[in-house]
């Protein structure tokens, strides 16, 4: 045990004690019941947005601009990775599984699509939303690549289609936000711009929230599968 190791251990131990003391302060002041903003969201959220899932209401209505920034982060991550990958064609190690694996994967793929799109379209009614649904759709491509190998899926064309979809999702999000400005209100305005909100709890309701969910889902699915493709290509 060198001096450096003991020193860092001591510092980290002190940090742990500090964290626990801070948490105990939290408990004593009873922070949990005094959030005015949360109270407002719980009491007024459904009337303002007609979305019964409050997390979706916060993400895509009250704080839609933050979600745009979040989508930009994934976009930039995919951009960095795909720019730094070499364009040379390299093939994944082609695994030979038993026929059972191919049959099972072919069987399961349509259900995974249905599950992903269900999560996206019912994002304002049940747990889920654009991000979770997009991840489920990205896992389909991961499964297909792992089982059938890279060559089977005509790599370049698929990658071009995926980047087109990613751009579509990003541009769609911004265009839906600009609709609010065109009608004379803020960027990403929903209820106050007079869009059709419908009845809370129905599938077609909540104004722009389902469309924003759809755009986010397309974008996240395309971005994550691009990231996976590039990582696989880099590993060879």
């Amino acid at each position, binding site marked *: 045990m060198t001096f450096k*190791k003991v020193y*860092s*251990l001591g510092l*980290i*131990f002190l*940090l*742990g004690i500090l*964290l*626990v003391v801070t*948490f*105990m302060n*939290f*408990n004593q002041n009873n*922070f*949990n019941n005094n*959030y005015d*903003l*949360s109270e407002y*969201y*719980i009491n007024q*959220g*459904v009337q303002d947005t007609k979305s*019964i*899932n*409050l*997390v979706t*209401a*916060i*993400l895509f209505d009250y*704080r839609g601009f*933050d*979600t745009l920034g*979040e989508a930009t*982060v*994934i976009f*930039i*991550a*995919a951009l*960095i*990775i795909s720019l*730094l990958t070499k364009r040379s064609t390299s093939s994944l190690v082609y695994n030979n599984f038993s026929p059972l694996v191919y049959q099972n994967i072919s069987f399961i793929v349509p259900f995974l699509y249905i599950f992903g799109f269900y999560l996206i379209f019912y994002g304002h*009614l*049940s*747990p889920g939303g654009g*991000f979770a649904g997009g991840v489920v759709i990205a896992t389909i491509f991961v499964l297909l690549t792992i089982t059938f190998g890279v060559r089977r899926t005509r790599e370049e064309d698929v990658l071009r289609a995926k980047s087109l979809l990613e751009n579509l999702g990003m541009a769609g999000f911004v265009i839906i936000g600009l609709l609010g400005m065109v009608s004379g209100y803020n960027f990403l305005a929903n209820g106050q711009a007079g869009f059709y909100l419908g009845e*809370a*709890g129905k599938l077609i309701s909540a104004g722009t929230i389902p469309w924003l969910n759809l755009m986010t889902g397309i974008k*996240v699915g395309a971005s994550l599968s691009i*990231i996976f493709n*590039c*990582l696989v290509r*880099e*590993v060879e």
Partner: protein
Amino acid sequence: MLAVQIVIAILFILGIYTILNRKNVIKIIMGINIMEASLILFLIQLSYKDGGTAPILDKEYELIVDPLPQALALTAIVIGASTTAVMLFLAIKLYKEYGTLDISEIRRLRG
């Protein structure tokens, strides 16, 4: 409640210890992810209420947990996933360039 908070503190300092004392790049990335997990656990713990259900106001809800920290946790998860992807990609590049993942051996800049 205090037990959960102690777990959060332990996870956090475990992550920092891993980042400071490990030499392998992959293990450093794992440490960053452990810290991030403790942060998400902290956000979820902030919103916890006894007997609360998920913040979905359907017909038969009684008491729901606070929705705001959950939205923030979703943001943290998404950003953590994308930064992890970039970090792993850079680790692959480092391994290809130097043939090792040990940060004490990666010293010289090679063009």
